[in-house]
Structure formats: structure tokens, C-alpha cells
């Protein structure tokens, strides 16, 4: 008999805009000791399915259907009975450990809380068990960590603490809702290893929610793929990945493999477009009464960009990659170092005509557009600054042409950003960046906030535009897949320094600098898989 049986689950939310269906009839099963991965993008209903099954939905959510856990029907169960199950037989690990841990309660008490509730332990007993658990999570100095508060730990430590809290009562089922999405790739790898070890040790069933098919492959015996609130495909991991049937599954699989990098053609004869040497950026913050704290965001960075080439800039969060392009674009003033454009030295603030030559595409498609301006007006902005020679009509025509070029209907020019989707808005941002005919475009995590389908389309668009216009591209990301698709050269940053640079293909295959090697090794990827013709 299965541990968990979900039958035709439906979840609807009451919103001011009317009822919205998040889950449209999902059925799945999970046996004791088995690991199931539920894969889908945001909006697919993957988290809501499990939250609804165990009565943890938001106030405006309604659940229909049947959920049987360990033989007991959960839908319609009175709250106090549900409370007896939760935390004792089922443990939850949520996505963002910082917001999922109570900020004013010490870690030790939170880890032991389920024990106090279900096993009626005293505070001291619970604390001792908690320290024990934290040690099992491979946290050194567990006693010290138990005394601390969530904000005093790192992301990885917090997530381990959450896992410890969930496993305190030795539950039969552990539900992990995107537990590693908010963590760096290397930390993610550690946590996934930990989970594998814990499964061997405790033998519990695991329901793992993720958007990354490669992570699912690493963790689960079976996979269920969700799209728009329905299961589109499910099956044993190996069989599913070897021969995915549904186009959406194939799309996800493609996003999870590292493609071959574009070839690099060295051009020593050409004049560099942009050259930077020894760049350093410091941020000062007031500290205490009169002191000032200086943090170095970028240290001794040097790089050369040739016309028309695409360079990837990768690193984990806090590595300084965003700071680097902002320093290059003159949006941030470096504390030391020199920058040259076309051979001539540059000093911030950059003269206005130069601004035309370099543009930026941001990560947040909505945030990058003034909510009070129509999309057309936003695209027109660089024209109104740099192309005074054009008439009103001329500018309008150019805006329409570019809307078309990025794959949008020119009629959308009169819409506002909130009326368009994220993907559409990102195309608008790209149109705005390219319309002034720049020679360099920096993309700061430009596709990170998009779903797999849109991500793929936007990357293709950028590749096309780059080929067509001969623009140099600086592509900042923490995601190696995107870099591998677009960039022939790559620079790796770690803790505000450039630690490695070179051709993308060689970077990917060699161990190189220890950090790069770790980074590449940590990237979850699918086992060798052959792509079937669509």
C-alpha cells in the first residue's frame, strides 16, 4: 500500500480578479521509502499540490479531491487531528530558510520544537536532541549554532537546520519544497548529498519539488512533470529521461544539459573595444556612531572586450559580477583602475554621447521599466536623448520596427508594463537597449527570472541580434547553461576577484582553477542523453 495517494486534487484561489485554478486534477502516489520529484516551473502548481494536501494553503485557497496518507483520508480532516499528523509523521523543508525560520527564536529551540509538541519533551531535553540532530547534519560546533539566531547563520547552515527540524521526529515522509533554489550551486550540491545520506540513514520517503530536472534526476527514483496545474508526464527517472515523450519534458531536459559552447575565434589584430585594468570598487557604509565600514566588491579586475564578441561573466552571488559591469558601464565609480574605450581613457561620469554606445538589460523585466510610461515611450527614451535629429514620426516608426524585430506586435507600444508578461517585457528591454545602435550591451542576469521556454527564446533572440548587429555582449549570470549557449569566452569571478578566464569550451572541460572546477562540477546535469528529433 502506498504511503501517500493523491487522487484528482484540485486547488482554487479566490482572488480579486476572480477564482484562479492552480491545480487542475492531479493524481500521484508515493510508496514508503521512495523518492519522488515533482518538477515544474513557477505557476505549475507543484508546491500548491503538496501544501494543499496537508492543509497548509493560504487563506483564500480551496481544496477538492482525495488525499490518503498512511491509510487516512486527509481532506476534510478536523484541524486538531491534522495537527497530530503534521510534524510527527510528515516533515517539511521550505524554499527560503531565512524567511521560513522564526527570526526571534534560537535555532536550537526551533529544531527541537516538533519534539516538544509531539513527544512532550522539556525544553532542555529538546535542546539536547536538537544539538544531536544538528551534528548529524554535518554542522561543526552544533552547540554554538543551536544558541544562534537565523540571521546569524549562512544560507547553507540555515537549510541544514531546517532539515534537522523536519527530521527530528523521524517522520515517514519528508517534503522538500525547492529546498536548494535559493542557494548557490556549490551549497546546493552539498545539501543534495546530505539528503541522499539521510535517506539511507533514516529510510524515509521523500517528495522533492524543484524546477530543475537535473536536480530531480540526482535525487529521485520517480519523476512527475507538471505544467499549468496538470501532470504532463511521469515515470521512473531513468526511463523518463532516456526517452521523454511530452514536448515540455524535452524542453526541461534541454535546459538541464550543458550544450557545446560556440567556437572562439581569436582576433589579435583587431583593436579592443573596451579594456579595463586593475579595477577596484569599494562600498562604504556608516557603521556605529562615527565609523565607516568599507567592503570591497571588486578587486583588481582586468579584462579586454573585442568588437562583436560575446563574453560570459559567471560567479556565485556576491562574487562581484554585477559590480564589474556597472563599473565598466560607468554606472558605478571605481576606486582604482583604468578603463579605455576604443583606446581612449574613460572617467566616470561618462559623457552623454558615449552612453549611446553602451546599454544594459536588467534581470527584472518589470522593474526595469518605468511603470508610469508606456512600453513604447520607454523604448523611445534613448532616441529622445540621442536622436534629436529624427522627427516624432521617424522615432515612432523606429520604435515600431524594433518591437517587430524583437518579436512583439507594434500595437503593444501603447501598453503599460503591468499589462504584459515577463517575457514580453524583457523583449521590450532588449529593444530599448538595441535601438540606439550601441557597440556594447551588458546583460545582467537577463534571463534568470524567466521560465524555460521564454529563456530559450530570449537567448536565441540575443544570439540573433548579436550576429546581425555585431554588438559586443557581456553576459552576466550564475547559470552556466546560458553562457555555454551564447558566449565563446568566459570569465569566472569568486569573492570579488577574477579567478579564471578563457575559452568557454576549455573552461568547461578542464578542472582549471579549483573554484571553476568546483563550480562546474557542482552544476547538476543530466546523464548522457541523446536528443531526439522534435
Amino acid at each position, binding site marked *: 500500500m502506498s504511503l501517500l495517494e493523491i487522487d484528482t486534487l484540485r486547488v482554487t484561489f479566490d482572488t480579486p480578479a476572480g477564482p484562479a485554478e492552480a491545480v487542475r486534477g492531479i493524481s500521484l502516489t508515493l510508496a514508503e521509502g521512495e523518492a519522488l520529484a515533482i518538477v515544474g516551473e513557477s505557476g505549475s502548481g507543484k508546491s500548491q499540490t503538496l501544501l494543499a494536501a496537508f492543509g*497548509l494553503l493560504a487563506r483564500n485557497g480551496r481544496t477538492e479531491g482525495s488525499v490518503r496518507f498512511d491509510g487516512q483520508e486527509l481532506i476534510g480532516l478536523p484541524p486538531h487531528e491534522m495537527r497530530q499528523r503534521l510534524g510527527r509523521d510528515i516533515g517539511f523543508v521550505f524554499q*527560503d530558510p531565512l524567511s521560513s525560520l522564526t527570526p526571534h527564536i534560537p535555532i536550537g529551540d526551533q529544531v527541537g520544537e516538533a519534539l516538544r509538541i509531539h513527544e512532550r519533551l522539556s525544553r532542555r531535553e529538546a535542546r539536547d536532541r536538537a544539538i544531536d540532530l544538528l551534528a548529524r547534519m554535518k554542522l561543526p560546533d552544533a552547540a554554538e549554532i543551536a544558541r544562534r539566531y537565523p540571521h546569524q547563520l549562512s544560507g547553507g547552515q540555515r537549510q541544514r537546520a531546517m532539515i534537522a527540524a523536519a527530521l527530528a521526529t523521524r517522520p515517514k515522509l519528508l517534503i522538500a519544497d525547492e529546498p536548494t533554489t535559493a542557494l548557490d550551486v556549490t551549497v546546493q550540491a552539498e545539501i543534495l548529498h546530505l539528503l541522499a545520506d539521510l535517506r539511507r540513514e533514516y529510510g524515509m520517503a521523500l517528495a522533492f519539488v524543484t524546477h530543475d530536472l537535473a536536480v530531480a534526476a540526482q535525487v529521485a527514483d520517480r519523476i512527475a512533470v507538471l505544467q499549468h496545474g496538470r501532470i504532463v508526464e511521469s515515470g521512473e527517472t531513468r526511463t523518463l529521461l532516456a526517452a521523454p515523450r511530452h514536448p515540455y519534458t524535452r524542453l526541461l531536459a534541454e535546459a538541464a544539459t550543458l550544450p557545446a559552447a560556440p567556437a572562439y575565434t581569436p582576433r589579435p589584430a583587431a583593436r579592443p573595444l573596451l579594456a579595463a585594468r586593475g579595477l577596484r570598487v569599494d562600498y562604504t557604509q556608516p557603521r556605529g556612531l562615527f565609523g565607516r565600514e568599507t567592503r570591497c566588491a571588486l578587486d583588481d579586475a582586468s579584462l579586454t572586450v573585442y568588437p562583436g564578441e560575446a563574453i560570459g561573466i559567471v560567479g556565485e552571488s556576491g562574487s562581484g559580477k554585477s559590480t564589474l559591469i556597472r563599473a565598466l558601464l560607468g554606472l558605478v565609480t571605481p576606486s582604482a583602475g583604468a578603463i579605455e574605450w576604443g583606446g581612449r581613457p574613460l572617467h566616470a561620469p561618462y559623457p552623454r554621447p558615449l552612453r549611446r554606445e553602451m546599454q544594459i538589460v536588467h534581470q527584472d523585466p518589470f522593474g526595469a521599466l518605468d511603470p508610469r510610461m508606456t512600453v513604447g515611450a520607454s523604448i523611445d527614451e534613448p532616441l529622445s536623448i540621442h536622436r534629436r535629429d529624427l522627427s516624432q514620426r521617424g522615432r515612432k516608426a523606429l520604435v515600431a520596427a524594433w518591437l517587430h524585430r524583437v518579436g512583439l506586435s507594434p500595437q503593444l507600444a501603447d501598453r503599460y508594463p503591468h499589462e504584459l508578461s515577463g517575457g514580453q517585457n524583457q523583449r521590450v528591454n532588449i529593444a530599448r537597449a538595441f535601438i540606439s545602435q550601441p557597440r556594447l550591451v551588458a546583460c545582467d542576469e537577463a534571463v534568470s527570472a524567466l521560465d524555460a521556454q521564454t529563456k530559450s527564446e530570449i537567448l536565441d533572440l540575443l544570439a540573433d541580434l548579436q550576429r546581425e548587429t555585431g554588438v559586443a555582449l557581456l553576459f552576466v549570470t550564475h547559470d552556466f547553461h546560458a553562457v555555454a549557449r551564447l558566449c565563446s569566452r568566459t570569465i569566472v569571478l569568486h569573492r570579488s576577484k577574477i579567478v579564471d578566464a578563457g575559452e568557454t569550451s576549455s573552461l568547461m572541460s578542464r578542472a582549471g582553477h579549483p573554484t571553476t572546477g568546483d563550480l562546474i562540477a557542482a552544476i547538476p546535469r543530466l546523464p548522457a542523453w541523446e536528443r531526439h528529433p522534435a
Partner: protein
Amino acid sequence: MFRLICGRLLGAIPTLMAIVLLGFVLMRLAPGGPFDAERALPPEVEAQLRAQYDLDAPLHEQLARYLADLARFDLGPSFKYKDFTVAELIRDGAGVSAALGGAALVLAAALGLTLGCAAALKRGSRFDAAVMTLAVSGQVIPTFVMGPILALVFGLWLRWLPLAGWGGGRPAFLILPVITLALPYVAAIARLMRASLIETMNESYIRTARAKGASPARILLCHALPPALLPVVSYLGPAAAGLLTGSVVVETIFGLPGIGRYFVQGAINRDYTLVLGVVMLYGGLIVVFNLATDLIYGWLDPRVRRS
């Protein structure tokens, strides 16, 4: 944490200085003066009074003397009540005002927090709607409107409580004034508490606690209430300041012999030492309240305490 205390203390000083200086400047700038209300005095008498009240010396000497006096809590003589000094008058009224303000604060906090919590927990119900409507009304209806109406209803029509006066401090005489003074703050605290608790209950860590099978009581008391209280604590500083303002009105309406009433009389009579003395006192109290509130907030929020 220690840095926080130092920072806040140092921050309070400019404010105190500004109050003191402003007071001094205003004192000296006033045209005419308290003597205008009286019949014209013969010049020698006026000169004598001027010397006695120290208005002859050069400005910087006056400032020095003023600061020295302040340090000794000597706020000068009252221009109007010739036999008393301002400090004495304030001392007389202090007991009444303190009783009034203290009781109002306690009532406002207790009632406001309870109603706010209850409304948040029963969010969307009719109880919630009723509490919120009452709260908005309570906050919006000025004290000087509510007071007379309450006096009318409970004092005149129902004859349950005395209309006005101090009655030597008997509790019955305090009830209406305290309620009148506390009402807007009950409302404000209730609204704040409700909004804050609703927002806290929507946090992810509450969901984690629910997922552990915690009872509603445990979730409320251990997880939700402590952070939800923080905005209310922040409000207590301004609330205390507001109570000071409100007490002026309430004492006037109900004829209570407190500091506030002296203040109003002083303003009408242009007895400016009295008026300025009271303002100094109030200003100082407000700074102290705000400081205390900041410190309590800093102590309660673990992110600040352990940073």
C-alpha cells in the same frame, strides 16, 4: 547594542538643544508682555519689575542665566500668578496629570492590544468589521468632541458619572476623562496591532510552525506575537507625546487641575514663563519617551540586539 544606545542618546541632544533655544528666543522676542493686560504701571515700578524678572541684562548673560536656571529646574516665576513660581505650579498639577496620563496609557495599551489581536484572528468576520469601524471612528473623532459628548450622555442624561471636576481624586471623577483621553489611542493601537498581526501571520515562518503541527495558541504566542508587537512598541513614543497633547484638552473640558489646564490658561493670559516652562517640560518628556521606545525596540528585536 551599546552603539545603539549611544547613538540614540547623542541623537536626542540636538532636539533638546533646539527646544531650549527656541524657548529662550521666543521668551525674549515677545512684544508687549504680561504687563499689557494690567493697567499701565508707573515707570519706576515697571523698571523694578523688569529688573526682578531679569529682562535688563544683555542677551548672552540672559542666556547663561536661563541655562543655569534650567539645570536647577528653576523655570522662573509665573507672570500671572505672582506668588508662585512656574516650578511650583507644575508640581501642583503634576499629580493630576500623571494619574490621568498613566491610567489612559495603560487602558489604551491593554484594550487596544486585545481588540487588535482579536480582530486579526477573526479577520473578515463581523466582529472584525465592527472593531475596525469603531477604531476608525475613535481615531477620527477629536478628543474635544468626544469628551463633551461623553459628559453629556453619561453625566447629564444618565447621571452615572460626575460631569466635571477633580473631586479630590476620587475614582469616579477620573473615569470619563481617562476614557476620553485613551479612546483615540485604543483605536490607533488596535488598528496597528491588527495590521501588524495579520502581516506577521502571513510570514513563511508561521507556515513552518503550522507544518510542525503547532497549536494555534503556540503559533500565536511564541511565533507571531513577539514580532507583531514591534510596530506597536514603536508607536508608544508618539502615543505618549499625543497623550500629553490630549491631556491639555481633557483637563480643560473636565475642569481637572492639572498641568495642561495651567498651560491653556497661561496661553490665554500670555503668561509666557508658565507657558514656556510647560513646553520645556513636555518637550523633554517627549524626547525621553521616544528614546525609551527606541531602546526597548532595539532590545526586543533580535536582529538589532545581536548584530
